[in-house]
């Protein structure tokens, strides 16, 4: 297990609300190995954001960690004093957010912001500036020296997102969390960002936790995939296994829904009818059963456990248990 970088182990997180406890994450387990790209797929309300903020421990005040551990290099981040956690953020674990238009401080030059985030380094200012220019060059910003003096509004959306990536990689983190980094961008720029991320990942050898609801991007970029639904992991495994041989009905139908799959013009596109259940008032049994076309009596009675089916391929569905199906 020496190559495991991040282990999420049976993590359960609630939000205390006036309506009662909202069970945002339940029994989440998966790991990220060194230098690997793991994709997290899920639709609105699946708990992606709660998961990221739990890893970084940047959670809202009404968050309660009910159980589980978030181990980074063997150390449980949930037990770490805030001071140590601060040392980790941005240095060992960094993040690229969704909206490149709101990531940067509008009143400071890009160069100033890139100097500021090197506050831990004792190097002379000229060195830090050279380092900033070098990073801008690495993400493909032309004429980086001169552009350090410019302000965020002088850059396009695609460039701002690349600058955000440059900033996140500047401290050579072991883990980069990318939270839907291409959602706000055009397809042509999306491709540029993905290809850039792939190159940089090779160069810096950092692991990437890539969150997206865009299956095409996940298929192209990731080594392994974790599929989340309504605060739980329903399936995880190697990217080919997930896309070619999904073992959870939600994964299967999510892939079916992607119109990128359907090459001929379709009059009626596949959908998943129904809605995500209320997390403050969870029904018993499998959370997907109301929308599942293969639900059985057992699905209402018991929550299906996330079980290993093949090497590294996990799914939480009773259909994979022979005795239940009979």
């Amino acid at each position, binding site marked *: 297990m020496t190559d495991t970088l991040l282990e999420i182990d049976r993590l359960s997180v609630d939000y205390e609300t006036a309506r009662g406890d909202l069970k945002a994450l339940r029994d989440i387990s998966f790991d990220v190995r060194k230098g690997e790209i793991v994709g997290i797929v899920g*639709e*609105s309300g699946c708990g992606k954001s709660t998961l990221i903020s739990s890893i970084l421990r940047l959670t809202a005040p009404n968050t309660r960690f009910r159980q589980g551990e978030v181990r980074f290099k063997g150390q449980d981040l949930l037990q770490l004093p805030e001071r140590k956690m601060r040392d980790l953020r941005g240095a060992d674990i960094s993040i690229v957010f969704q909206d490149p238009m709101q990531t940067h401080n509008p009143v400071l030059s890009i160069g100033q912001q890139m100097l500021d985030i090197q506050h831990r380094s004792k190097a002379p200012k000229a060195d830090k500036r050279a380092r900033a220019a070098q990073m801008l060059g690495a993400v493909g910003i032309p004429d980086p020296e001169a552009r350090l003096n410019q302000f965020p509004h002088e850059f*396009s*959306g*695609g*460039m701002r997102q690349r600058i955000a990536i440059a900033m996140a990689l500047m401290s050579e983190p072991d883990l980069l969390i990318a939270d839907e980094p291409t959602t706000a961008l*055009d*397809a*042509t*720029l*999306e*491709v*540029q960002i*993905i*290809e850039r991320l792939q190159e940089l990942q090779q160069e810096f050898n950092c692991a990437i936790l890539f969150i997206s*609801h*865009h*299956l*095409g*991007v*996940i*298929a*192209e970029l990731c080594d392994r995939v974790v599929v989340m639904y309504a605060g739980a992991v329903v399936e995880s495994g190697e*990217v*080919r296994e997930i*896309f*070619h041989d999904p073992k959870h009905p939600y994964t299967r*139908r*999510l*892939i079916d*829904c*992607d*119109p*990128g*799959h*359907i*090459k001929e*013009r*379709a*009059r*009626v*596109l*596949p*959908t*998943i*009818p129904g*809605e995500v259940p209320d997390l403050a008032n969870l029904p018993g049994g499998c959370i997907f059963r109301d929308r599942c076309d293969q639900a059985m009596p057992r699905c209402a009675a018991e929550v299906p456990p996330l079980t290993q089916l093949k090497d590294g391929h996990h799914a939480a569905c009773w259909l994979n248990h022979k005795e239940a199906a009979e």
Partner: protein
Amino acid sequence: MSLLDVKNLKTSYGPVNVLAGVSFTVEPGETYALVGESGSGKTTVIRAIAGLAPAQEGSVKFDGREIRGASERELRPLRKDIAMMFQDPVGSLSPRLTIRSLITEPYRIQGMKDRDLDAEAKRLLEMVNLPAHFADRYPYQLSGGQARRVGVARALALEPKLILADEPTAGLDVSVQGELLNLMNDLRERLGLAMVIITHNLNVVRHVADRMGIMYLGRLVEEGTTEAIFKEPRHPYTRCLLSANPEPDPDARLERIALKGEPPSLLRRPKGCEFRERCPFAQEVCSQTPQWEVENGHGLRCLAPLS
């Protein structure tokens, strides 16, 4: 006669030349998609059609009548026939009005006092597959997909002939996106609506549009039937856009054509072909300005087209 006939539409904001002459037509019952990167002028086109953005030159004919430069008073009755769906589903709904007020607001604006607004609200909600009790809800109580459907209901209220939809599926989950597209396809068939859809999601275009136009720097660079363009794109920009579309298959072998750099500034339009600097197929002839040429219903602005 075409339902909508846009000819040589030009818009400038001061020195920024956003639309440099856009022409296309939409027939009754047809869905036309405008595709292109951010800043290509897609949204300005439909806003100019709806009279929400200025257009200094050119013509917009709806049902044979010129509507460019019409006054607000002249436009008001026309807005019964041309409805708009805005990009931000929740942001386009006033937070202080109930869904009932929101979807029946068009009747009040048009002064249709004889309508039973409760009954109309019920009918419209049913049309977009939302339960009747949603009439009493407020926008913040809706999911993104539900807010979109309220947007559709409001656009349909006055039984328009043409819907202008700006990124109708942006920000929706895939499972919900299909529902909305099915709904729009269904309504279009039942009500005989024509639509102009703006999107940068090519997977969506394939399933809803009859014809499509590809925009670059405020001009159409290619236009044709959706089928023809997906099968055989002739403009290098179209080819690049189509190839940039990630496939939901880890084994898909992508013949990706990298697009160099980013769109140039509208303040410094390149000489000759405006796509030349980014074009992987550029040739010497491209230093001349390409003209719009139409062959068998397929329009193209390129001096070195792909075959």
